[in-house]
Structures are given as structure tokens and as C-alpha cells.
């Protein structure tokens, strides 16, 4: 069973990023859960969600000991760095995470200039997909092709296939950055 936490400012698309991973898992015949922090916890500008996936079943859907945390801003990094599973990953958007990231020697901090990459693609909104690409590479549970097929399937079902090319480019850029 794998656990990934997505955290950042509201508007950075972390909830959607989590959903993309869950749909990729589903598309590739795995079980998945997605759960946000909700209610008062979502006020105040930061948000996060937890995705778990497994070939058989997911027990408790709650946040426990993530294999990887995607942190898109400083508060997210600080909040979650200590719960990453030993041997796990902290995937940071190095354009916005400026705090000292060298806090634990039992995890790997992957620094991806996500904002720079997405801006370079012409859309700052693509940040979350860039980071999903990087996350998929780091986790190593899905090939690039499997993941892209799952992502495209999700957006197609939402009637958003107009953005398919942009999404694929963003995903690939993130994937190659790791």
C-alpha cells in the first residue's frame, strides 16, 4: 500500500493533483482512496489531500506515514516533513519552498523548479501536473505511458480533453525533471 500527500496553497491545484494520482491508480487496476482535509481546516489558504493505492485494498484512508509528500509551499513542507516514512520522498517545488530542507537524513528531498517549468510551458496553472509527473517518476509504480493514459482518461470524462496536449506536455516535463 502506498501513501502520497499533496499539499500547497489553495489554488495551486493540490486536490486535483491527488485526484489525478488516484485515477491513474484506478485506471491501472488498483484500488485507491483520496481524502482532503476539510471544513475549517481548509480555510486560511493551505490545503492538502492524501491518496492511498494498493493492488488489493486500502485499509484506513487517513493520513498516516506517506511514502511521498508533494509540498508546493513553505508551510506545507514544514507541516509534513516529519511524517514522511523513513526512506520516503519529500518532493518540493523549489521555486517556492525556500526554507531549509535539510532536516532529515533518512528521506530524500527532490527539488523540482515546478513554477519555472510550468511558466516555461506558458501556463502557471500547469504546476500541479508538472509535479504529478515528477511524483509518478519518483514513486516508480506506474510507467509514463500508464500514468498519462490514466490522466487523460480522467480529464476526458470531465469533458476537459481540450487541455490534453498541455497536460501531457506538463506531465512529461515534470517526469523528465526527476
Amino acid at each position, binding site marked *: 500500500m502506498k501513501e502520497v500527500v499533496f499539499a500547497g496553497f489553495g489554488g495551486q491545484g493540490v486536490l486535483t493533483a491527488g485526484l489525478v494520482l488516484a485515477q491513474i491508480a*484506478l485506471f491501472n487496476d488498483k484500488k*485507491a482512496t*483520496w481524502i482532503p482535509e*476539510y471544513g475549517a481546516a481548509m480555510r486560511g489558504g493551505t490545503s492538502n489531500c492524501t491518496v492511498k493505492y494498493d493492488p488489493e485494498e486500502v485499509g484506513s*484512508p487517513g493520513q498516516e506515514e506517506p511514502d511521498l509528500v508533494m509540498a508546493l509551499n513553505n508551510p506545507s513542507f514544514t507541516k509534513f516533513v516529519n511524517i514522511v516514512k523513513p526512506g520516503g520522498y519529500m518532493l518540493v517545488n523549489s521555486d517556492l519552498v525556500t526554507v531549509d530542507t535539510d532536516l532529515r537524513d533518512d528521506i530524500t528531498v527532490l527539488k523540482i523548479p515546478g513554477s519555472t517549468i510550468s511558466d516555461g510551458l506558458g501556463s502557471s496553472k500547469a504546476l500541479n501536473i508538472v509535479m504529478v509527473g515528477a511524483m509518478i517518476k519518483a514513486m516508480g509504480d506506474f510507467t509514463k505511458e500508464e500514468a498519462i493514459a490514466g490522466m487523460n482518461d480522467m480529464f476526458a470524462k470531465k469533458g476537459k480533453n481540450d487541455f490534453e496536449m498541455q497536460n501531457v506536455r506538463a506531465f512529461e516535463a515534470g517526469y523528465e525533471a526527476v
Partner: protein
Amino acid sequence: MGDMVKGNVAMGEAAIRAGMHMYAGYPITPSTEIMEYLSWRAPQEDRVFIQAESEMAAMKMVYGAAATGARVLTASSGLGISCKQEGVSYMNMAQYPGVMINVVRYGDGLGSLMSGQTDYLREVKGAGNGDARMIVLSPSSVQEAYDLVYEAFDISQKYKSLVMILTEGGLGQMMEECEYSEMKTVPFASWGYTGDRSKDEYRPMGMGADVYAHALEMAAKRVTIKEEMQRWESGFLDDAEYVMLGYGLPGRAIKSYVKARRAEGEKIGYIRPISLWPFPEKAFKGINPGVKGFISVETSDDGGMVEDVALYGKKYGSGFEKVPVYGLFCPPGIPTLRFIGEKFEDIKSGKMKEVF
């Protein structure tokens, strides 16, 4: 393959597909998405949606609508259901079918927004004044939440009883794979009010003229429900030294935990009650006679279900009269396997004492 669907949305869609005619409710976290979803989805299918002025009024609207033989639904969380108790009891008195959903938030009074199971005693032990009871069903996945709501309307009509779907903030808010079933079109029940007093098929008005007959009818009905409606899922009971019991999210957590520990050789089993009233006492049959303890795993201050685990598990004649019952009470939020594991070690080592 189903799609990722939010628990609250799945339950709303289940009601639509089960032929629900009317929803009335009032916004409250973490159940609000049910009403938000139905606010546009119900009119789309020519069903009635009402945003009521209060929880109390919503339940009274549901009661009025149920009198016509319509399939009715309301949903709320914790304290919202407290406000509805008067209408709940009226529904029970009149034996009107209806479905309620409680997406529980942890705590008493205003409570918190965190997920929890702190409404067990109210939902399972009573439903307003009178010896009122509701059939209480608790899902542990989004698909099961969908399936139970979809079926609840039929169960409710069959037994002339309210059905309460008792779920948790965590399940209402989470997304998981869910496949939808076919859309049912259901007419109003033939006994419902139409305005024509000359037709003869009726639910009695109120308790009916004969209160003694009403009392006997209600008692008989509950005996039937207790016999026919017990539901649970269980595993690894025949040689279990400890049996964990949990419903909802703790239910899926213990199942996962037990499977993992079994792989390591730990002799532990689980029972996941799906019906909470009636409590699935039949589930205890087949448990290892040498079992050392029953463990009620709940997201609660000091337990609700633990009382039923003791009451039914240690029932006279069961052979388990002297088996200790432990309360493994998880803190507010979603239970973690790590916490369950730590507390289980405390139980085995004798550090944690039994509740009953």
C-alpha cells in the same frame, strides 16, 4: 471500472437512482455535499429538493411528504440530527418509511468538524421519545455507502421503518471507486395520502385508535427486524485469540490490520458490523471458544458500540460470558493502523484493562 466519487455525492446519487421523490435538509459540515448535489440533481430528474429553514423543519417536511407514500430522504451531521429527533419519533409513530444519513462529526454539542463515531448511542439505542428504533446501517467504503443508500429505501418500505445510514465525516469527504446501479422509477406507495378518504388502504393516523394494538405491532415488527436484518462481514474467527470489532472506517482499518498481522502469524480475527441496529449478534457464532478478548475499535471518547459488544458477545449461554471486552478508542479523525497496533499490544500485555 468505476470512477473516483466522493462519499457524499455517491449517497446523493444513490438516493436519486433508488427512486427518491423528495429531499429536505439544512447545510452542515461534513454532510453538506449531499444537499448541494441534490439541489441540482433532484430537479434534473423531476424530484423535489427543499432547502429548509432549519433541521427541525426539514425533518417535519420529510414527515409530511412521507405521509403521501413518497420516498423521502434527509441528511445531516451530529447535532443536526439531534434537532431532528422530534420528527424522527413522529415518523416512527406513523410507521412511515424514510431514509436518513448522518455523516458524523466528532463530539457533543457543536462538536468538531473532525470525523468520528460519537453518535452511536443516539442512533442505535433510540430515535426520539417512545421505544423508537431505526434500522441503522453503516458503510465502510464509498461503494458500500452507495449500495446501502440505494437499498435503504426498499428496506425502509418493507419494514415500515426509518433507515439511518450512519457514516463518518471521513467517508462522506473521501473519494473512492464507485459504480452506479440502474435508475429506478418508483411510484408513491399505495397507502399514502391522496386526499381521498374513501379509499381503504391506510397507515393509521398517528398511533391509530388502539394504542395497545400499536404497541404489540411495533414489538412484533422489531423482533422480525432483529431476525432478518443482521448484517456483518467477518474473518479469521475460528482460531482467533482476539477478535476486533469495528464499523465504518475503523471497520475497514481493522480488517486491513488483521490481514496484515495474520500474515505474520498473529491469531487475530475481525467482525465488521454493517447493521448496528439490529446488532449482528449472529456474527459471534463460530468464534474460537478459547478467545481471550473482544476488542471494540471506535472513533469515540469512551465508546458506544463497546456496550453492544459486551451485551451480545457475552450473552448468557454463548460460552463467552467471561471473555473480557476491551475498548480501543481512536482519537478524533481517521483511525490509523499504527494507533490500533500500539493499543493492541497494550491489550495483549495487560497494560490496557477491559471495559466489561
